[in-house]
C-alpha cells in the first residue's frame, strides 16, 4: 500500500510546477455555470477540463525520459499504475470539491437557488463523468504515450458534448430520465458508484497489463 | 615503497609490480615483516584493476617473497632476500644450462661463451 502512495506522491512532484496552470483551468467552468445558471453544467465543464490534464504525468515523464527512473526504482509496475490512478482521482476529487463550493457560491450570488438534490446529483454526475473519461484515457496513454495518445485528451471533450446533446436535445428522454432519477435517486446513485468502481478496476487491470508488456 | 608503472614499456603491469617489489626487497627498501600496500588501495591509487594487483601479490606469495594473511595484509617474508637470492641463483643456473646447450649446438667454444658473457655484462652495466 505504501509504495502505491509513494508513487502517487512522485506523480504529484512531477506535476507541481504546473499546478497554477491547472488551477486557472478551474476558473472557466465557474463562468459557464454562471452563464447557464446551472450547477450541473458548471460541474460537467469542470470535470471535463480537469480530465484533460490527466496526460501531464505522462507527457512530463516522456519529455525528461523519466521512464528510466521508474525502471530503476524498487517498485512493482502494478504499484506504479495504481499510484498514478490514485493521483489522478485525487486531482479529480479536488477539482470537484472546489467546484462544488465555488459554483454554488456564484450561483447563489446571482440569485439562483440550489437544492440538496441538485447538489448531490451534480456531484454524482461529476464523479461519473470524470471516471468515464479517465478509464479510457489512462490505458490509452499507457499504450500510446502522451504524444500519439493526444487524442485521448479530447475524450472528455467528446464525451462532454455528447452529454450536452443528450441532456438538451431530447426533451422526451429528459423527462424520462428525470422521472427515473426523481423516483429512484438513491438506487441510481448507488448504481453509479458501483459502476465507477467497476470501471476503474477494469481500467487499472488493463493499464497494468499494458505497462508490464511495454518496452521502455 | 616506490612503485612506478609504465604504460608504454610493453611489460604487463602485474609483472612490473612483481619486479619492483622484488628489487625493493633485495635492496632493503622493504624490510621483513613490513606490509605491502593494501591490495585495493594500491589498485585505486595507481588506477589499475584490483585483479592485476591480486595477481602480482598472489604470484609473489607463490614465489615465496610475501605472505598473504586474510584481513591483515601482505607481509614481506623474513627470509625474503635469502629466498629471493636462492630463487635467482636457481634461475641463473637454468639459464646458463640453456646457454651452454645452445652454445654446443652452435659449436661455440668455452672461451667464446665466456667472451659473450663479458660483453653482455658490460652492456648491462651501461644500461
Amino acid at each position, binding site marked *: 500500500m505504501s509504495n502505491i502512495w509513494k508513487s502517487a506522491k512522485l506523480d504529484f512532484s512531477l506535476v507541481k510546477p504546473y499546478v497554477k496552470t491547472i488551477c486557472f483551468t478551474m476558473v472557466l467552468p465557474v463562468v459557464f455555470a454562471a452563464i447557464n445558471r446551472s450547477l450541473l453544467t458548471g460541474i460537467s465543464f469542470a470535470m471535463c477540463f480537469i480530465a484533460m490534464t490527466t496526460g501531464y504525468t505522462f507527457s512530463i515523464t516522456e519529455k525528461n*525520459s*523519466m521512464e528510466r527512473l521508474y525502471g530503476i526504482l524498487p517498485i512493482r509496475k502494478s504499484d506504479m499504475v495504481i499510484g498514478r490512478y490514485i493521483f489522478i482521482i485525487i486531482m479529480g476529487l479536488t477539482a470537484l470539491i472546489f467546484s462544488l463550493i465555488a459554483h454554488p457560491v456564484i450561483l447563489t450570488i446571482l440569485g439562483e437557488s440550489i437544492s440538496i438534490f441538485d447538489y448531490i446529483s451534480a456531484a454524482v454526475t461529476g464523479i461519473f463523468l470524470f471516471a468515464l473519461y479517465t478509464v479510457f484515457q489512462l490505458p490509452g496513454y499507457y499504450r500510446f504515450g502522451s504524444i500519439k495518445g493526444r487524442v485521448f485528451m479530447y475524450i472528455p471533450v467528446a464525451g462532454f458534448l455528447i452529454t450536452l446533446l443528450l441532456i438538451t436535445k431530447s426533451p422526451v428522454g429528459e423527462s424520462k430520465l428525470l422521472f427515473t432519477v426523481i423516483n429512484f435517486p438513491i438506487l441510481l446513485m448507488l448504481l453509479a458508484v458501483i459502476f465507477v468502481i467497476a470501471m476503474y478496476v477494469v481500467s487499472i487491470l488493463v493499464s497494468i497489463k499494458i505497462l508490464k508488456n511495454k518496452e521502455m | 615503497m616506490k612503485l612506478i608503472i609504465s604504460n608504454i614499456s610493453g611489460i604487463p603491469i602485474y609483472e612490473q609490480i612483481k619486479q619492483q617489489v622484488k628489487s625493493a626487497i633485495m635492496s632493503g627498501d622493504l624490510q621483513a615483516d613490513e606490509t605491502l600496500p593494501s591490495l585495493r588501495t594500491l589498485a585505486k591509487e595507481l588506477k589499475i584493476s584490483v585483479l592485476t594487483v591480486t595477481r602480482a601479490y598472489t604470484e609473489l606469495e607463490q614465489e615465496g617473497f610475501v605472505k598473504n594473511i586474510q584481513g591483515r595484509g601482505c607481509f614481506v617474508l623474513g627470509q625474503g632476500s635469502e629466498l629471493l637470492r636462492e630463487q635467482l641463483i636457481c634461475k641463473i643456473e637454468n639459464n646458463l644450462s640453456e646457454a651452454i646447450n645452445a652454445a654446443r649446438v652452435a659449436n661455440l667454444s668455452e672461451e667464446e661463451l665466456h667472451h659473450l658473457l663479458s660483453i653482455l655484462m658490460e652492456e648491462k652495466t651501461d644500461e
Partner: protein
Amino acid sequence: MNDYLEVRNLSKSFEGFQLHNITFTLPKGYIMGLIGPNGSGKTTTIKLILNMLKRTSGEVKILGFDNIASEQEAKRNLGVVFDSNYFSDEWKISQVEKSVSAFYENWNTQKFSETLKRFHIQPSKKVKELSKGMQMKLMLACAFSYDAKLLILDEPTSGLDPVSRDELLHILSEYIEDGEHSVLFSTHITGDLERAADYITYISYGELFFSGGKDEFIDSFRIVKGGCEELSTDLGKKMLGIRNFSTGFEALIKTEDLKQFAHLNVEPATIDDIVVFTSKRGEQYE
C-alpha cells in the same frame, strides 16, 4: 553472496536485431567493463537486466534476487547511471532527494548532502541548470546515498571531457575499494577501462564475444605488423582483422598463434584494438 550480477543465456529478439545467449557473472568487489561497438547490444543488455525490456529467454539475478520475480528486492540494492539524467528538469535538487529517497529505506540524508558537496553540486539548483557532468554525478550521489551495492553505468562518459572521465574513474575505484561493491560499466570509450577494469564482457553484434578477466582478454591477442609482401595465406587464415596500407598492414591475431608469425613486428593489443579489429566485418585481405 559472492556474485552480485548473474546473467545467463539472456536473449532478446527485435525486428532486425537479435541479442543472443549473453552469459556473464560479476563477482562482488570488482569493475566489469561491458564493451562493444555502438548498436551491438550493450544498452539492450542493461535494459533487460532492469526489466525495462521483455526478454525472450534467459535469467538475470541481482544480488541473488531474480530480476523479474523479485524485482523490488533486486532493485533496492541497485544504482543506475545513464548517459543523460532521468529526473524532471524542473526539479530542484531537494525535490530530487524527496522523490527518490522515499523509495529507499536506508537513504542517508547526510551522505547525500556530503556527496553533493564533494561533487560541488549546489543543492539550490534545478536539474536543468546542471552541466552534463554534474547531472551524471547527481545520479551517482543518489546511488551512493542508499548504499547501492551494484552500480550499473550505461555510457556515463559520452559527452564528458577527459577531466570528468578521469574523475568518474577515481570515484568508481573508491566505490569498490572496500570490496563490498561492484560496478558494471558499459562504454564504447574503452580507453577508460584499459587500466581500471577487472573483467571485460565484450558483446559484438548481439553475440557474446568474450567474458572474463581483462588481463586475460588483452593478453590473448597481439597486433602483428609487416610489409605487404609478408601477408601470407597462413596469416590470412589466422588473423581476426586487418588494416591494409600501401606501406604494409596491421593485423590482430590470437596470442596462441603467435609462434608462426614471430618474425613480424609484434605489439600488445589494447582493448580498443581488439574491439576495432574484430568489428571489421567483411574486411578481406587481398
